[in-house]
């Protein structure tokens, strides 16, 4: 099977000269839940933001290497970045509603894509809210401010918001940070259903969460990949001593 995303020799340096990523190589298969984990400053978020080119927002950075999405380099000059971001959705660590109603938030990406038909938008809003396990809680108050939702609801709304665009890949940057255990469980549960349809790359909240949800995982340390393997390999029989130490809680 060909990889959905193939990261090849990717290195990235911030404008202050700090090297965030060094020679990253990994393949992410379709419908896989791929976990990127490691201590802070490992380069996880940096890597995620390169995949949908949100890294473009930073000035003075340097990058070498490629990210192939369906076989085509996302950094190629002829890549349509807007289209790329519609196909690779993202959920951020801090829930980030846009000002406006829940419905406005869900419809925003669709409207920006030029979809006018209200029926189409409403259908997509409902389906993506169901996928994010939020529909039953908000179906009677779609016109309420998105800021009125609880933290967990906000985060599921953000998930639904990126699902509304029907992307191929979803990037989840610590989507359960700051959530209570029940909300966390709801988000994790929805992930299992979602990967039937999407490819998911996730930075987990903890090693425990990583081992619960991962099909495959990559352990990152100081901008380098230490080890990539199946859930079994990484969390039960790690090959690298550093992976073992981190997974068993000896550092981190």
């Amino acid at each position, binding site marked *: 099977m060909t990889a959905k995303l193939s990261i090849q020799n990717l290195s990235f340096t911030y404008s202050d000269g700090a090297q965030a990523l060094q020679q990253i190589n990994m393949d992410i298969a379709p419908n896989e839940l791929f976990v990127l984990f490691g201590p802070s400053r490992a380069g996880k978020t940096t890597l995620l933001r390169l995949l949908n080119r949100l890294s473009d927002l930073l000035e003075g950075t340097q990058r070498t290497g490629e990210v192939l999405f369906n076989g085509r380099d996302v950094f190629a000059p002829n890549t349509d970045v807007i289209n790329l971001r519609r196909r690779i959705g993202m959920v951020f660590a801090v829930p*980030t509603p846009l000002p406006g109603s829940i419905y406005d938030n869900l419809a925003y990406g669709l409207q920006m894509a030029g979809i006018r038909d209200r029926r189409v938008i409403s259908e997509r809003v409902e389906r993506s809210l169901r996928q994010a396990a939020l529909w039953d809680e908000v179906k009677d108050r779609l016109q309420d401010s998105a800021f009125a939702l609880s933290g967990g609801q906000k985060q599921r709304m953000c998930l639904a918001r990126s699902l509304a665009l029907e992307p191929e890949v979803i990037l989840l940057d610590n989507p359960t940070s700051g959530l209570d255990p029940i909300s966390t469980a709801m988000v994790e549960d929805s992930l299992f259903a979602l990967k039937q349809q999407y490819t998911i790359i996730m930075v987990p909240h903890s090693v425990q969460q990583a081992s619960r949800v991962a099909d495959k995982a990559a352990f990152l340390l100081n901008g380098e990949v230490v080890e990539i393997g199946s859930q079994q390999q990484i969390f039960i029989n790690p090959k690298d001593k550093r992976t073992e130490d981190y997974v068993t809680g000896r550092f981190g």
Partner: protein
Amino acid sequence: MTRQQTQKLAAWLITGTAVVVIFPIVLVVVYVIIKGISTVDWEFLTQPPSNGMTEGGIFPALLGTLILTFGTAIAAIPLAIGAAIYLAEYAGDNRVTRTIRLAIVNLAGIPSIVYGLFGLGMFVLFLNFGTSILAGALTLGLMTLPVVISTAEEAILAVPSEFRVVSLSLGASRWQTIRHQVLPHALPGIITGVILGLGRAAGETAPILFTVAAFYLPELPKSIFDQTMALPYHLYVIATQVPGMPLEIQYGTALVLLFIVLSFTLVATVIRTVMRRRREW
């Protein structure tokens, strides 16, 4: 002194400075109201001056000021907001942008008479607009630009950056992001800046002195190439250039001008307060 005493003293001193600052302003406003209120009536506002300006009203000057302010808005607002969007959203942090910002800050500090002379040289003479509403409005617009650009840029930069990042991550273009996520939320600040700028323009004498203002012109302007009377200049004229001028008319004129400028500020404050209250984040 004990800590409590120092605390009390500091509180008194700070309150004192506030009072010292506010007192003269209140005094000026109250004084002008007391001296001028008896003159201001419907006739004063709607009649032209008569009998060598020693009688009658201020209608041509009042209308002229309103027209000039409107013209200033047309000249300055699109340019200022465009420049603010460019500086806040598109311009990188490089030497060119830094120079532009420095220039804007310095432009704000240029005395208004210099704008007046520039307007005379540029619009009246070089571009041959003559002494006209067009030349005056452009001069006032130019003077207003730096203030509006600075406040608008600040308002745009105050919009949380997450909104931009989220919007872009949802496949919105840069312009869509600015149009739908940045400008609506920056609008209260932008409007405040615009209104304060226009308020200042409405009250300025020096920029219109050589570019548009007529000493005495009872008929109303018919096109933007005509001269017009304007309140600040009219006030200057009747206060210094006309012998035997009744004081009530001077204070009445001052009161109307003060009222116009203060109402700009008031409107700005109301808009900002209402829109802030509606804000969700």
